[in-house]
């Protein structure tokens, strides 16, 4: 018995570290979900931000440093949205996660970006992202690129599991295609629907499903709404026939409610990440919820 115990402990001690699931820290819950889908049992993913948080304004916490110190891989949204992650990675001092290291994955790599500023960019344009709009995950088609980036990172760390990751990726992509076709079918009747959004976070979604964003509650990205801007927006909504206001669940409701009162438009407070609302458990639920809410609101608006 004693010998068996010694052998067991010895085996445990010498067993390679790669036998344990890879620990992946992601900036968002959507990335966590996709990591889980691609990595399967080979991955234990944790999101630093919750699905109900505004990813622009996540406050770095010491406990996040601890999670990054233990991680084998980090997956970021990129494009300036999660700049808070840089100080955390530096504080964790985990060589595997530094920029360019095998465990560093920027999910935005290769995503066709919208609203890439041309020419000078400064704060007169609000809190603008200099490399383009970073809310790219709200086009479900981009999830394939995000998943591919994650798969590449996982293959770097576990090359011997490449077949598994590729097979998981294929299954994820197939499900995504199927769901996307379903959402596109349901949204086909809403093509050309005019909406107002709180923040300029829906251009990818709008482009995918043919919606027209006629304005934003914020006068410029990150700038709180003013009375004159809202009055102007009321006029624009009336003249352009915008009957739906889309806001993230975390934004203040005062501005959208004011617009709704003045124009009769419906306000949709939608989660934009997995875990961001009731019944929104995963990345696909984000779109199920948004598509359903838009269908209902557009039906009522007609």
């Amino acid at each position, binding site marked *: 018995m004693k010998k068996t115990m010694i052998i067991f402990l010895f085996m445990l001690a010498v067993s390679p570290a790669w036998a344990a699931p890879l620990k992946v820290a992601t900036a968002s819950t959507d990335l966590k979900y996709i990591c889980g889908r691609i990595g399967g049992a080979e991955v234990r993913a944790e999101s630093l931000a*919750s699905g*109900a*948080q*505004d990813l*622009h*304004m996540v*406050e*770095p*916490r*010491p*406990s996040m*440093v*601890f999670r990054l*110190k233990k991680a084998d891989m980090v997956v970021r949204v*990129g*494009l*300036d949205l999660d*700049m808070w*992650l*840089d*100080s*955390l990675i*530096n*504080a*964790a*001092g*985990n*060589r595997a996660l*530094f*920029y*360019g290291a095998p465990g*560093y*994955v*920027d999910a*935005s*790599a*290769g995503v066709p970006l919208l609203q890439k500023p041309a020419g000078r960019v400064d*704060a007169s344009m*609000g*809190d603008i*992202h*200099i*490399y383009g709009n970073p809310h790219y995950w709200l086009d479900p088609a981009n999830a394939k690129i995000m998943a591919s980036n994650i798969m590449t990172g996982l293959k770097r760390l576990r090359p011997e599991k490449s077949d598994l990751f590729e097979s998981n990726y294929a299954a994820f992509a197939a499900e995504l295609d199927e769901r996307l076709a379903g959402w596109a079918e349901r949204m086909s009747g809403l093509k050309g629907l005019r909406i107002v959004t709180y923040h300029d976070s829906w251009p990818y979604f709008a482009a995918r499903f043919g919606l027209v964003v006629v304005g934003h509650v914020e006068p410029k990205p*990150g*700038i*709180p709404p003013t009375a004159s801007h809202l009055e102007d927006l009321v006029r624009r909504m009336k003249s352009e026939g915008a009957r739906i206001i889309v806001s993230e*669940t*975390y*934004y*203040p409701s005062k501005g959208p409610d004011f617009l709704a009162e003045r124009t009769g438009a419906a306000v949709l407070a939608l989660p934009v990440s997995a875990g961001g609302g009731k019944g929104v458990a995963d990345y696909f639920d984000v779109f199920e919820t948004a598509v359903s809410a838009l269908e209902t609101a557009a039906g009522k608006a007609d």
Partner: protein
Amino acid sequence: MKKTFIFISLLAAVSAAMAQEGGTPPQGMRGTPANLPDISMIGVVEGYLSSDKSDEEKGKLEFSEVETAFQGYIYPEMRADVFLALHKHEGSYESEICEAKVSFLRLAEGLSAELGKIHLDFGKLNRAHTHTRAMIDQPAVLTGFLGAHALNPQGGTLKYLLPLPFYARLQAGAWDGAPHEHHVDAENTADVVDVDGSTVTVVLEPGETSDFSPAGKLYTWRFNMSFPLSAGSELELGTSYLKGKGSHYEHHRDDIRLAGADFTLKLWPSAYRRLTLQSEYMRLTREVPVGKLERDGLYAFANWRFSKYWDIGARFDYAEGAFPAMSRERDYSLIATRRLTETTTLRAQYKHVNLDGGKTDQAWFQLTFGLGPHSHELE
């Protein structure tokens, strides 16, 4: 010539496009993807009112501080952060290296280091640059025991993330702090009775300034740990210790020790709401040839961010003077902050000061703005 120019322009445009489209985007996506550091500037405009008629600074609205920063990597896993400040000090603008440090992000598993002129990691607030604090002034205990500005000596520190199942960091540093320069009349001495009953002969506080701060060879350590109490709350506990000399050692011959304990509790009930409760306690011990002074100080700060754009806060300060003539200061502050953007804030603060029974009311208005990609280490 024109053709060559067009060709070069085309080549530059194509190569820039390729650099953007291919491969992993640059880290943090700040600045431009050229070989330039992140260059930024923070400006602070302050207005100040006081009920003290002898206060020469009252009634002024002026640019109080400009901080410029040059930040970037200098080698794999090594970065440099240089913060140059121009700030108002006793009526005139003075320039200083606020911080200039090289960080070795990973020397070994969990081990990192910093070298240079650094805001000392003592307690919670000394390390934070003024524009990152949720208040306009600083608590009396910091002013009394660490100096009117943040204590930022030259030296180095080793930081070690302990291999524990929660965040715990131990750090130790060795420093050389410059004493404040001012005239001291060494003949101006007195025998005073300390709080412990001992008699101490000391050089009295110079008339020009009441600044005290640690100086000379300084040795520090700090241990802090943090626990997530739930998904929406985190508790951080820390202890700090400093050993060195007083800033007027040549006159006072004072060896000093400063011990501190701090806690910070943060609760995030929703995306934009946050309650912060923070407190620091410090005990200063000055050993002079004929005796020992022991002084205590603390602050307690509560801040409630109730929306995306607004914070309100309250702070209580208690600090005993660092000098032999015992003084006690109790301050009560109310603070309101309006965030215009991620880098621009408007802030107002009212403070009621009770210094040995002498009462003063003070008020500040502050506009802080940022230009460019300015960042600080996790604080």
